[in-house]
């Protein structure tokens, strides 16, 4: 009996803990009230603000971000700095992949979606069905690096044509030796490593090299975790693989970078400069965030966050291993946001290779 009673105490203690945190669970009713009164208070607040404080008013709320794992480190870095400056705003970031992120975004579940490629036709449709409009903003460049084992001394540059020969679907089971790529390469088996087929990285690489998004040979070792690919290529003298430049930067001693010749005879190695100025083609790609147009009007904090993002991006993007856009492009992106221009500059065609962001944005802003 005594034992049973002590058990009862434990349960009682637990229920007290629950009761203690129950009031904290109140945000839902508050939120409802907030949206109802938002129209009236906004006007009043605006007036009060302009009279009392000329600086932007108290910024608070939660901005939900989800999407690409490639873009996440950038958004997390921005969120980290932003929350230091605006502690009342909470910016959580989820990682469900570019595609998974768009599914939630077009369902109205998130405010901002990270994307490592432009929105696809099917996703444009989904958003349209649910009445979600979005503002597309480029935030950084990412270079896809092609790599071999450091012991490989015969490869220093490959043409896009040669890469296509290696990676196209027809190569499956056929191109299995280095000397099939170029006759002067040694008679040595070829083993391939690449980003997982569900990633935006794979989509972009196949689009840029094979010419068709999502099509490649199947007999390569895929991994969603780029660190696994680093290990694979570092331990295999016959290896050839591709993944994000950030992972090369951290593993320079274990990998050898291959220059890419885009058909004009110039071998270009990816680095900050060649990726940003577009000479490393076709394997440099822009990264994006998509902002829910309707939420921009409902939540003032989103505008503050976006302005902060585009302002601090060039510094923070470098911190996490990506390549910043030019100041002009950040400016054009901010203008695009200020004008609330919805839709994609790529018009739903998916990964687009070799287009200049600046040209596209500049054309639009005229």
């Amino acid at each position, binding site marked *: 009996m005594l034992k049973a009673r002590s058990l009862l105490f434990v349960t009682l203690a637990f229920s007290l803990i*629950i009761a203690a945190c129950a009031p904290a*669970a109140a945000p839902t009713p508050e939120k409802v009230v907030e949206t109802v009164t938002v129209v009236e208070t906004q006007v009043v607040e605006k007036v009060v603000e302009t009279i009392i404080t000329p600086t932007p008013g108290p910024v608070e709320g939660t901005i939900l971000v989800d999407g690409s794992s490639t873009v996440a480190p950038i958004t997390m870095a921005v969120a980290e700095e932003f929350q230091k400056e605006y502690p009342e705003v909470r910016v959580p970031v989820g990682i469900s992949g570019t595609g998974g992120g768009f599914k939630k975004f077009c369902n109205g579940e998130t405010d901002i979606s990270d994307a490592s490629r432009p929105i696809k036709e099917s996703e444009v449709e989904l958003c349209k069905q649910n009445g979600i409009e979005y503002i597309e903003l480029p935030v950084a460049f990412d270079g896809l690096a092609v790599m071999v084992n450091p012991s490989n001394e015969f490869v220093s540059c490959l043409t896009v044509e040669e890469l296509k020969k290696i990676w196209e679907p027809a190569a499956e089971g056929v191109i299995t030796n280095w000397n099939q790529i170029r006759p002067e390469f040694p008679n040595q088996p070829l083993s391939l490593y690449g980003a997982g087929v569900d990633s935006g990285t794979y989509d972009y690489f196949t689009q840029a090299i094979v010419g068709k998004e999502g099509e490649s040979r199947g007999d390569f070792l895929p991994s969603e975790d780029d660190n696994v690919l680093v290990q694979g290529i570092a331990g295999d003298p016959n290896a050839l693989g591709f993944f994000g430049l950030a992972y090369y930067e951290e593993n320079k001693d274990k990998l050898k970078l291959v220059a890419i010749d885009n058909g004009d005879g110039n071998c270009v190695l990816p680095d900050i400069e060649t990726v940003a100025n577009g000479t490393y083609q076709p394997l440099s790609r822009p990264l994006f965030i998509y902002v829910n147009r309707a939420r921009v009007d409902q939540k003032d904090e989103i505008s503050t966050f976006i302005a902060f993002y585009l302002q601090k991006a060039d510094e923070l993007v470098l911190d996490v291993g990506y390549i910043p856009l030019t100041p002009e492009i950040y400016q054009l992106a901010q203008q695009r946001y200020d004008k609330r221009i919805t839709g994609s500059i790529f018009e739903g065609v998916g990964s687009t290779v070799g287009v200049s962001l600046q040209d596209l944005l500049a054309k639009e802003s005229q």
Partner: protein
Amino acid sequence: MSAISSLRDLTYERQLTIRQRKGRVLEVIAFFSILLGIAILLTLLIDVFLDGLPWLHPRLFTEFPSRFPEKAGLRSALQGSIWLMVFTALMAIPIGVGAGIYLEEFAPKNRLTEFIEINIANLAGVPSIIYGLLGLGLFVRGLGLGRSLLAGALTMTLLVLPIIIVTTREAIRAVPRSIRLAALALGANEWETARDHVLAYSMPAILTGVILAMSRAIGETAPLITIGALTYIAFDLRGPLDIFTVLPIQIFNWVSLPQKDFQNLAAAGIIVLLALLLSMNAIAIWLRNRLFIRW
């Protein structure tokens, strides 16, 4: 006569040594089996501790995640994991143990209960991602709980319920019939017998099941990602209806980052997760020892 019996003794002797030798071979095999298990566990632990120990720092508990490994911590993930476990335990244990008691002590033996029993046994083997999808449809969207800690805890409850029910039933079944009969003979009704005798006697074994169930829940990532648990959270949890993240998700995120330091930080995170798991189990074992009744 004596020749036959001595012959018999001889074959008996020979067979005995063969049987003993077989026994010894089996013993060696069994010994190496357990050695293999321990060796794998030790390798994992040593590897994790070598990478993670230098990064094990009080900062891990007080700081939020950061892009700088030397500033990053597990505060939000730790809060998420602890509260998720508290809510899961609060819901799963009463329901699971209650269902177990009902099925074993009170339920009539008919087609329906048989059907339920088979289903519970099968549910224990369903992959966790399926529970994640169920949670997404039922709790996140259906009940409108959103991507909240409570939705996560409810999903985890569904995930561990079959384990708790099955172990509770096993534990109750092991209670000697004489104890039930003695209680009934002294005038206790069925509920009193179940509560004061059967449950009290089987509590240690039930707690073992609860330990197993909670240990499974604390390491789960897939169903929580499915219901929309986040990866980067740099603020304190405000209540059961708030968005959340948990330790395994944070660890997975660190492992996938390019910087080597984050991989070491992930190892430190694994040590914290292990410590949390072991302390949770320690509480259960302490309770078990307190509740243990000798007859």
